[in-house]
């Protein structure tokens, strides 16, 4: 699927989460997402960026505008080289947290997007990809 624009952002400190949200908002507007969809994907991005920071020990996001069959969308890939997730199903369950969160971020991000995939294994880090189509 062709990519028409790619941006990268490091996620190292909590201000970077704000930057990820702003970038996501900007790309969503560019793609022409409505206000509700913009808010959804920005919120999902916020959740994943904070997980990358808090559990992954920092990482980066690749934000893209993608096109497929005449449709445009925003795709975000969050990647870290942290401890990884041993039990992905458990991590996705509402209410599960290994920290002091609400345990809703990962599952919530999945519900807020059209596409969601997660690749993670202990010791190799975590990669979460989401997309929201217009």
């Amino acid at each position, binding site marked *: 699927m062709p990519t028409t624009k790619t941006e990268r952002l490091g996620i190292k400190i909590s201000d970077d989460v704000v930057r990820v949200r702003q970038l996501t908002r900007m790309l969503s507007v560019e793609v022409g997402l409505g206000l509700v969809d913009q808010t959804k994907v*920005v919120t999902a991005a916020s959740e994943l960026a904070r997980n990358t920071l808090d559990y992954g020990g920092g990482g980066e996001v690749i934000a893209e505008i993608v096109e497929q069959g005449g449709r445009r969308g925003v795709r975000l890939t969050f990647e870290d080289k942290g401890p990884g997730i041993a039990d992905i199903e458990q991590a996705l369950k509402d209410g599960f947290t290994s920290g002091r969160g*609400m345990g809703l*971020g990962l599952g919530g991000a999945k519900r807020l997007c059209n596409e969601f995939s997660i690749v993670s294994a202990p010791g190799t880090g975590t990669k979460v990809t989401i997309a929201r189509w217009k």
Partner: protein
Amino acid sequence: MAAQAGSDVASLVSNNEKTILPEWVELQKKAGILHTGRISEGELQAQSKNFLHLLHEALTQGGTDTTGAAFEPARGMLADLSRSRAQQGFSPSETATFIFSLKRPLFNALNRDNTLSAEQIASTVWTSTALLDELGLFTLEIFQKSREEVIVRQQREIAELSTPVVKLWEGILALPLIGTLDSQRTQVVMENLLQTIVDSEAEIAIIDITGVPTVDTLTAQHLLKTVAAARLMGADCLISGIRPQIAQTMVHLGVELNVISKASLADAFAVALRQTGRAVVKTKRIEGFALPEKKSGGQGA
């Protein structure tokens, strides 16, 4: 080779200081540096003279390695200059012009010198270009860092400033939240609200999130904690200003704020008044808008 090149540039500077300095200052003025109104001609003159002197010292002592010890004083001076320009609101290019505009006067001096071989001229041009480029980039790096420091400081100031708790009525407070709710700000907001609840013996606090662009799980958690803490201080919270797109997102996210929420601050205020045994009634006084007698019920004006 490097040492030779360095001393070539050094003697170029020292032999031509009298022409380089005024030409350089003139170029900076032409670039409009004084029009910014942030620096006086005297300061510009002093800074330029000082740098030229330090550059000469560095070149004589240590060749052309701008990261070396010999360049320490010159780098220190440039760092101070970049920092102060960043704080004074100069643009990056206005700041970098200080160094880059030195090229022309140097090359002019080189052209005027007819004792040099073509080879010497070429190597001196190359050395001084590389040198000034490095120093120019150094200037930009410091500039950037200082801008970031300014931003961090401003964020801290905003965190303290932008969290006013306002009294709407006897016993009713409002906390209009604006902007991002992560970072240290939430802590300040929360403490501020709780303290005001205690000080004013408030019964109801309305948290208005019209100005919060995103409510994610962290924001929701902060809100819930604030509501719980307020309850412990004896005050009930209402939340207002949840915009439709935020409400929908919160449903998908699965967060519930178990408090009464209203679309607008005005609606929440009406609820708060009712809960504290008060009501707002229209009076007949506005001419042309008088209500029929029997409809103007309530407790009287």
